[in-house]
């Protein structure tokens, strides 16, 4: 995005959330959320279902009243501005196409409501339809369309009036896997063309990583981390983020630090710390920790009898690589291996941990910042 020429009309807005809270009854769904979204930026709200991401989006849209806190658009407080006057477009998970109108009437609706003259409406509708390659569908009704086509119509309806921000609520989740990847790419391309500020809600971490300039990971109404996809992957701020982002999920081991022997130990494992890690732990005085390590930082070998012995639980061939799920007594973990890796269940293997790539979290799940992991 950086360095690309901005569109002729600079139709963007910055959105800021300040200590935003939404409670249904006494249960907070969104809890003290603060976020600043720059104009032209794509921010993805990522989290499991029920984490408050959709509610947040609905508050930005004006469909839901905030219990407390502020929503600012271009620096102005809009808590009490109705959705009609926020100049925001939204794509719903269900697409929310108007079933009794043709595709053309659906796309033209935002313009007709704004009392544009019919000639102009037709003009804009056909131009937008051409952009999304749905010109041949203009005369049909939503129920005659496939899921992917409906998705395009919903997008067309959102972009036809050049809003200053897009809100997207899991727009791809109703599509089958293949179509989802295709639409994801198209969506990204479209956003880069338009440069419109976008808030995108999803529970799919791959969507978040690929689409977002920055990703806000939420859990149970609380913001866990708000950063670039790369930082979120490489330096997850909490154990939750570490476990939620990345596939296969990160391995976690609860255990304690044995400062004397420079080791992380639990029932099944005894892993040697790097000198730097040992020094930091000595300073911290923390004993109970959670160790997180991604599958790609664990190597498996069937021959070199070097490292931690383990049993093969299963192997999952993914095409270009293999996920190897291993068992060490009660502990199960997953490692990445090449596509050629083959092993029978219950056969013996030896694994090595790249300890300098380990992530450390305290018992509350917060990242131990001072302990280095490269």
């Amino acid at each position, binding site marked *: 995005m950086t360095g690309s020429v901005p569109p002729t009309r600079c139709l963007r807005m910055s959105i800021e959330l300040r200590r935003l809270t939404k409670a249904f009854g006494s249960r907070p769904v969104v809890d003290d959320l603060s976020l600043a979204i720059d104009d032209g930026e794509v921010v993805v709200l990522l989290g499991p279902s029920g984490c408050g991401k959709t509610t947040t989006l609905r508050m930005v849209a*004006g469909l839901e009243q905030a219990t407390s806190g502020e929503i600012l658009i271009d620096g102005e407080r809009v808590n009490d501005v109705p*959705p009609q006057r926020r100049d925001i477009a*939204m794509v*719903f998970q269900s697409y929310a196409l108007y079933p009794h109108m043709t595709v053309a009437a659906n796309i033209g609706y935002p313009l007709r*409501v704004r009392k544009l003259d019919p000639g102009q409406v037709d003009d804009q509708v056909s131009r937008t339809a051409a952009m999304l390659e749905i010109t041949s569908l203009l005369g049909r009704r939503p129920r005659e369309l496939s899921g992917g086509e409906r998705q395009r119509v919903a997008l067309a309806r959102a972009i036809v009036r050049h809003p200053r921000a897009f809100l997207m609520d899991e727009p791809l989740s109703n599509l089958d896997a293949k179509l989802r990847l295709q639409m994801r790419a198209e969506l990204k391309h479209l956003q880069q063309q338009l440069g419109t500020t976008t808030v995108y809600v999803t529970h799919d971490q791959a969507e978040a990583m690929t689409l977002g300039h920055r990703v806000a990971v939420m859990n149970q109404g609380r913001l866990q981390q708000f950063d670039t996809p790369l930082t979120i992957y490489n330096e997850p701020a909490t154990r939750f983020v570490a476990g939620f982002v990345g596939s296969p999920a990160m391995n976690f081991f609860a255990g304690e630090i044995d400062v004397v022997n420079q080791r992380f130990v639990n029932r099944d494992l005894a892993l040697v710390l790097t000198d730097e890690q040992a020094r930091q732990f000595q300073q911290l005085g923390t004993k109970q920790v959670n160790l997180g390590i991604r599958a790609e930082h664990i190597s498996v070998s069937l021959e070199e009898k070097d490292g931690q012995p383990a049993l093969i639980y299963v192997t999952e061939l993914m095409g270009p690589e293999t996920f190897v799920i291993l068992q060490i007594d009660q502990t199960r973990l997953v490692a990445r291996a090449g596509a050629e890796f083959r092993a029978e269940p219950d056969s013996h293997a030896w694994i090595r941990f790249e300890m300098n790539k380990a992530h450390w979290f305290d018992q509350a799940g917060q990242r131990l910042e001072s302990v280095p992991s490269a």
Partner: protein
Amino acid sequence: MKRLLKYALLTMALLATVAPVYWLITISFKHEVDQFAVPPKWFLFRPTIEHYLDAFFTRSFGRYFFNSLLVASASTLCALIIGTLAAYALARFRLPANLDRRLALWILSTRMFPAIVTAVPLFLIMRDLHLVNTQLSLVIVYTGFNLPFVVWMMRGFFAEIPRELEEAAMIDGDSRLGALRRIILPLATPGLAATAVFCLIVSWNEFLFALVLTQTDDAMTLPVGIAGRVTQYGIKWGAMSAAAVVAMIPILAFAMSVQKYLVRGLSLGAVKG
């Protein structure tokens, strides 16, 4: 065997509903001597239209017909407008302390006592408002009578329409009322049609309030007018039947004109209420 039984039952049901109507129609076309001939003349009789001429030209049935048409359509329209807006509010807005649901039950409860209970007080109110023996009094009463029904029917229909549609409309720049008019109401048309038919039938057939609140031809409706032909001097079966036959026509015509909505509307409303 099973098929046979099915058709036998259907034939019986059909006979039970159609036979009185058939009898009514034949009486309206029979000379008075043929009307109660023994044995009854089922099919062969000398037809006449004298009763129709009698009913609508020498007697005031034409006037009753007009009154009925006016009162029924005006009260149906009023009930639909007020009731639909109320139903929309009850379907979409959550009020504190479950007030929306209580309000809906309270509205329904107004239909739970017999009509006669309100007849006397309504008469006194209308008398004080100088509205006795006017069509307006009937329009007001029928509107009130139909409102709970409209509210409950339409509330069910609105509840079935996804909220996201009007949310999308509002984000697209429409007002709430605009979204109601352009998005929600078109989708609720089957429900609206079914509800309108019911209201129309109720208002069209209503007898008690019409009897209490009207006294002369100025405001009298068909049911009261027809019953009024039973006098101490004799019963004008022919004229009554002719009027009744004509009275069937408007409802039948309306129901047929909205039939394509009606089937869907009735079955939808039945599941959710």
